[in-house]
């Protein structure tokens, strides 16, 4: 059977993303940052209206921006997504009807808020009474909304607050190093010490000891 990359791509996207949009947001965000930073670095390099001193800050700032963005975006958003998902899976955060359902079934009642409860699997496998037949759908909709909102907020915090603070600190250091390097490599101009002239020295002595009214 020949390998068809297009069919492989369709299956891959179905398997990984047809249930979970939050996961997709994370990985496409990372790729977006890399592409965007590469283009911005070129824009700075070829902008003749920005002087070298400012470029020495903006270029490292852009590179640090990409690096810090990727690291913080992945760590903060992945952590937030998994954390919020766990809160829903353990029944700690749940819609009213889901909580009612869990409290009415002894198997789940004692495990609400415990790590061993995974509602993603339990609600699908369990034979629920007729009055709770809509509970799996309600749970899924609520959890999906919660994790997507949490992922977006975490993305904003990581890329718009944490990353700028980190990249500014690192880029400022890079600029200082550039300025110091420029100072060290530029030719030094020796400062001339003002020497007292022979004429002025003797003129002062003459003035001090002269008794004549004649002033030169």
């Amino acid at each position, binding site marked *: 059977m020949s390998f068809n990359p297009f069919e492989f791509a369709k299956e891959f996207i179905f398997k990984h993303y*047809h249930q979970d949009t939050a996961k997709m947001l994370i990985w*496409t965000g990372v790729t*977006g940052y890399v592409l965007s930073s590469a283009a911005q670095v070129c*824009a700075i390099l070829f902008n003749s209206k920005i002087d070298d001193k400012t470029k020495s800050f903006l270029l490292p700032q852009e590179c640090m921006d990409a690096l810090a963005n990727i690291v913080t975006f992945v760590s903060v958003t992945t952590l937030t997504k998994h954390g919020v998902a766990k809160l829903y899976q353990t029944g700690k955060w749940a819609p009213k009807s889901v909580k009612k359902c869990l409290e009415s079934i002894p198997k789940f009642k004692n495990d609400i808020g415990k790590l061993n409860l995974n509602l993603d699997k339990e609600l699908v496998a369990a034979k629920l009474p007729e009055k709770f037949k809509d509970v799996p759908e309600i749970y899924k909709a609520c959890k999906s909304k919660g994790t997507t909102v949490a992922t977006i907020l975490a993305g*904003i915090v990581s890329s718009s607050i944490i990353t700028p603070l980190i990249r*500014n600190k690192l880029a400022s250091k890079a600029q200082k190093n550039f300025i110091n390097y420029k100072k060290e490599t530029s030719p030094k101009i020796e400062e001339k010490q003002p020497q007292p002239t022979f004429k002025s020295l003797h003129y002062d002595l003459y003035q001090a000891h002269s008794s004549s009214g004649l002033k030169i």
Partner: protein
Amino acid sequence: MYVQSLSTNDYSVSMCAAPKDGSGRIKKLLQKILDKVPSATFEDGKKKVEWWEKSNKVIAHPAVNRLIMGGGALAFQPAIDKFNHRVDEETREVAKNRTIAKIIAGTFVGIFVARGPAYTLVNKMTQINGKSKFSKMLLPNHNKDMMKVLSTVKESLSNYKLAWSTFIALGIMVFTNFLLDAPLTKYLTNKFNANSKLLNAKKEEVNDVI
């Protein structure tokens, strides 16, 4: 490796006990953290559930998602650059102007050139009941199980479309970042710099000295 003891003596059983599993400690710690988080119960109902599904579809839409991220960036990043006292005033001003230009350019191109058109295209190519080959091109037609899930499970098809449109938008971004984003950022940065009172005042100072 756990070795089962043949002796009934408790001591010998413990000698063959399974090695300590560190994951138990991690689980205890995670449980402690989970216990600290307050519980939450959300009001639900048919309308509420429909609202959750609708709004989730909207905010996960690539173009809307880009707009939200752009808005968040515009709210915080320029201020952080403006109050970065590790560099001089001039550098701060240029950095702030470039950040604003980058956010505006990136958001505009992202929404109107990459993500919006990508989603429209994907929507046209993922029609379950489509008649033409083009209208079903992006569906996993060869796999009956996947097609069954996409046709019957709620949100499955819309998530599948969102994923495809985001990936296609990334492919478009490879070109638009260099051909549109970067030049537009440069143009806007220079425009903001030219209109900046602080930078113009600095230029006049330098001219006066000369």
